[in-house]
């Protein structure tokens, strides 16, 4: 038997009524009303996001992961914890892909306590390693919403005003064990302009509704794993910056990558500053990025210089954040037939989407893909290769 004893068998698990997902509505089509509403909201997301709004591109996000008893539930396979951590790994990657000059930190909460898994940092690798390690965590006790939020604002409140302060809570439990009144904390969060969003894994909890409404975040509850993923991906995109957030100039360094060879006499091997604190990791190396201000060496970008505190990025990173400012226009919805120009599949849905500039038609799936990931219409890339902007 290669299975752990505590993991129950498939037939011992919850009784599922898989056939009930398919529901016939009045007209006889197999589309549940709720799904219809969901589809509408999905579309809405695409259309809504296309205003000319100021987006907070420098983000500081704390992800709070519930590790309480309820994460052992098997309704996500193999259990809630493993499934969430897996999804979070892809989330972390996408997050840094879309927001290269942002930072992220992980917090876990269990047994009425909150612990920091990783500090706020701009390096995805460290977080992913931590997430992989966290799979073996024993899920025990109740979570504490208060303690986790409190821990998160300890660091967030020191972040400069022009960046966005965000907390994303993955909450599986329906109860929270708090040392003090959470309403006071919500007020503090509001005054600190911290945006708290919650993804619930089981059901709608009142305190989360209040929390997210007061702090301007979003609150969603998952239906299944794919829906969970979708909801997580919502948080990849930077939120609109609040109009009251201050504007300031930020000093940034753009270090060149110097490549040195062993044959080169001048090259001296040196440690990367980023690896000083971690015991393992890369040892001595020759080349790297050198801070233009103090010449500290780093092997990876983006990073905040440990010596002089300068934000070090590379030019492509900034360029990547650019599409958030000039998003692709929403495609117009119309009923028609034909083939999708992106996936070449037959258009079977009741509506298709047309790019207002080039007139290309797409199915709803491709439409979402283009807007969420590609950020440009595949049919009219301008020859010089830069991203075309629909203005």
């Amino acid at each position, binding site marked *: 038997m290669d299975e752990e004893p505590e993991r129950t068998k498939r037939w011992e698990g919850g009784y599922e009524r898989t056939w009930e997902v398919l529901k016939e509505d009045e007209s006889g089509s197999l589309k549940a009303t709720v799904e219809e509403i969901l589809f509408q909201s999905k579309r809405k997301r695409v259309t809504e996001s296309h205003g000319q709004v100021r987006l907070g591109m420098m983000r500081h996000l704390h992800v709070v992961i519930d590790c309480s008893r309820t994460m052992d539930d098997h309704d996500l396979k193999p259990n809630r914890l493993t499934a969430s951590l897996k999804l979070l790994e892809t989330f972390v990657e996408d997050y840094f892909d879309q927001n290269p000059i942002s930072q992220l930190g992980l917090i876990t909460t269990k047994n009425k306590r909150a612990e920091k898994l990783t500090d706020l940092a701009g390096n995805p690798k460290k977080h992913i390693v931590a997430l992989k390690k966290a799979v073996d965590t024993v899920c025990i006790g109740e979570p504490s919403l208060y303690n986790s939020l409190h821990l998160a604002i300890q660091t967030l409140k020191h972040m400069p005003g022009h960046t966005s302060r965000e907390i994303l809570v993955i909450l599986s439990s329906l109860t929270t064990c708090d040392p003090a009144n959470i309403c006071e904390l919500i007020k503090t969060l509001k005054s600190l302009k911290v945006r708290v969003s919650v993804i*619930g894994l089981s059901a709608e909890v009142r305190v*989360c509704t209040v929390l997210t409404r007061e702090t301007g975040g979003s609150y969603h509850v998952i*239906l299944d794993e794919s829906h969970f993923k979708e909801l997580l991906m919502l948080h990849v995109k930077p939120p609109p910056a609040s109009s009251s957030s201050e504007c300031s100039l930020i000093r940034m360094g753009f270090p060149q990558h110097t490549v040195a060879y062993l044959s080169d006499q001048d090259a001296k091997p040196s440690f990367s500053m980023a690896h000083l604190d971690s015991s393992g990791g890369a040892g001595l190396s020759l080349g790297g990025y050198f801070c233009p201000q103090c010449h500290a060496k780093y092997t990876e970008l983006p990073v905040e210089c440990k010596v002089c505190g300068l934000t070090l990025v590379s030019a492509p990173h900034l360029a990547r954040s650019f599409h958030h400012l000039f998003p692709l226009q929403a495609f117009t919805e119309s009923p028609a037939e034909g083939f999708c120009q992106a996936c070449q599949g037959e258009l079977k849905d009741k509506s298709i989407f047309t790019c207002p500039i080039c007139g290309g038609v797409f199915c709803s799936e491709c439409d979402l893909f283009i807007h969420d990931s590609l950020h440009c219409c595949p049919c009219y890339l301008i020859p010089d290769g830069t991203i075309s902007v629909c203005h």
Partner: protein
Amino acid sequence: MKLNIEGLLVYFPYDYIYPEQYSYMLELKRTLDARGHGVLEMPSGTGKTISLLSLIVAYQKVVEELRKLMEYYSKQTGESNNFMALALSSRKNLCIHPEVSALRFGKEVDGKCHTLTASYIRAQRHSDPDVPVCRFYEDFDAVGRQVPLPAGIYNLDDLKDFGRRKGWCPYYLARYSLLHANIVVYSYHYLLDPKIADLVSKELAKKSVVVFDEAHNIDNVCIDSMSVNITRRTLDRCQGNVDTLHNAIQKIKETDAEKLKMEYRRLVEGLKEANVARETDVYLANPVLPDEILKEAVPGTIRTAEHFVGFLKRFLEYLKSRLRVHHVVQESTPQFLKDIFDKVCIDRKPLRFCSERLQSLLRTLEIADIADFSAVTLISNFATLVSTYSQGFTIIIEPFEDRTPTIANPVLHFSCMDPSIAIKPVFQRFQSVIITSGTLSPLDIYPRILDFRPVTMASFTMTLARTCLCPLIVGRGNDQVALSSKFETREDFAVIRNYGNLLLEMSAIVPDGIVAFFTSYVYMENIVASWYEQGILENIQRNKLIFIETPDAAETSMALEKYQEACENGRGAILLSVARGKVSEGIDFVHHFGRAVIMFGVPYVYTQSRILKARLEYLRDQFQIRENDFLTFDAMRHAAQCVGRVIRGKTDYGIMIFADKRYARADKRGKLPRWIQEHINDGSLNLTVDETVQLSKHFLRQMAQPFRQEDQLGLSLLTLEQLESEEMLKKISQIAHQT
């Protein structure tokens, strides 16, 4: 928006309307047009009351117009301002006198008020200015009656504010203003309880429309208002009252014998005055004052005050001897009358006049504090009732309570078994009486037990954009043990354990608040004790806090407050309460305060009670309602009341769990309101605990998805244009389920 309901212009104060509201108004209008009575059931939280008011206001305006004919016709739209509506409550809630309003109990306030405002007290003041009176009442009496209350809508606080500004007594102002108010809102008792109705409601116009809202319990209110319970304490206090009366008579005889003579002469004349009033149809009939006695003079045996007091003493002694029994006695009213005649030679006739005679005596003796005389009033009312009605009442004397057979605590229950007696004058007098509530199913039983003929009976469903209620019938535990609260399995360990399991599992998956109802306090105590021993409570407490309703009101309101706090800040809570208790009747659990409600067992009334047995017998003989039918009806309306607590609107959602296999039977299920029944399909019958958990999980996730007003629009929420479309009108006509 302005609606056109079969030719009647109705002003509706919102931009949107639910289809069932429109349908409700339609039915209501038909009832009023037919000048008949109606029974209407509509789910709570779907805007029943606003529909009611909108239509009735519009309807009254039409009546107004017809009377005043064409000259006002042109002003029609400008007329909406001279409309008056007010709420009436007891002196306790309306008094603004600094000393009187500080008293804590309603009875004390009434008594104190009476000592300050009674007519002879005020007469005394003319000669002796030191006698204290209520200045608010004096001011009101001096000028208040000439200047009517300005048109407008008054709730209790508005009335008090107005009273303070003017220096008038709000209570008497409200009572006086009832006569020319267009809409009056007050408690049932002001109309059904004969003692109060006589004071407050008897002058209401014949053309009034009477609406009993939340009327699912109306038969019990009727019965309670006519029933009398006499204990040894009542008799002791009554004895004291009689002695006081005796002394007062002696005193007045020495000082003012003329007064007693005057009274005697008046009594010889008989109660002609009241008779004339009733014949000319000015007043609402009083069931305690039977028609026959109005035509006769007060019999000679009790005409003089001393004789009457002697008569009361004899009657009292007789009752005392009856309470000295050692076994349960049940007899009908004629039997009782025969016995009383045999033993103490009291005839039927003087008994019948007892209540009126006492009132007259109290007036003559100028006794200020009526509250002290409640015991003797009760006894005299009993005397009148017992001698007037030969049917519909029963007398049961129990020497001890069933639970404590060793402690002697004799009680004489004079119990009304026919709710139609109390409500009959209301049906007879008023043109239209509407009975409406969220849970009235099965509709046809109400006209039968209240003995009237409705012109409309309709049950409305909720049109929903999403299925926001999830009724589930749990019949088995995970180990296939049948779940039931029936007597034989009540003590069964396996059943109790499975009930505990159900609550435990639900507490893990339902967010925020869960309300659980048990069939009785005793049953709840047993089960909770057993859960504690099995460690189930401890496990539940890991998920949610537990609060328990107790018979003590202060404790319960404290528990409720903490319960709500726990729901509010995310800890989650369970409230264990009792069907037919305070929580099940009056308290709403909106949104997160109640995401699930669990009904443990079928809330049958305690069937061993002799009063209930007598009532069932009566129902069977008089109305051909089988005992079982009535018991089930009564149990199901309470169950529906309990589970209905969680859905208070269309944006709300909640799970309703019926944890008893008996609910799955057609006779039980069929008695649930239509709006709940509709959502019980074959797949939600006789579930195990596991299946319930899975279904609930699925439901809760679905309901947690964002839900906006636009999603409802056009489906369960209509604009005026949508309402007027052909298709919608056709749909609406199907909402009302005529029976």
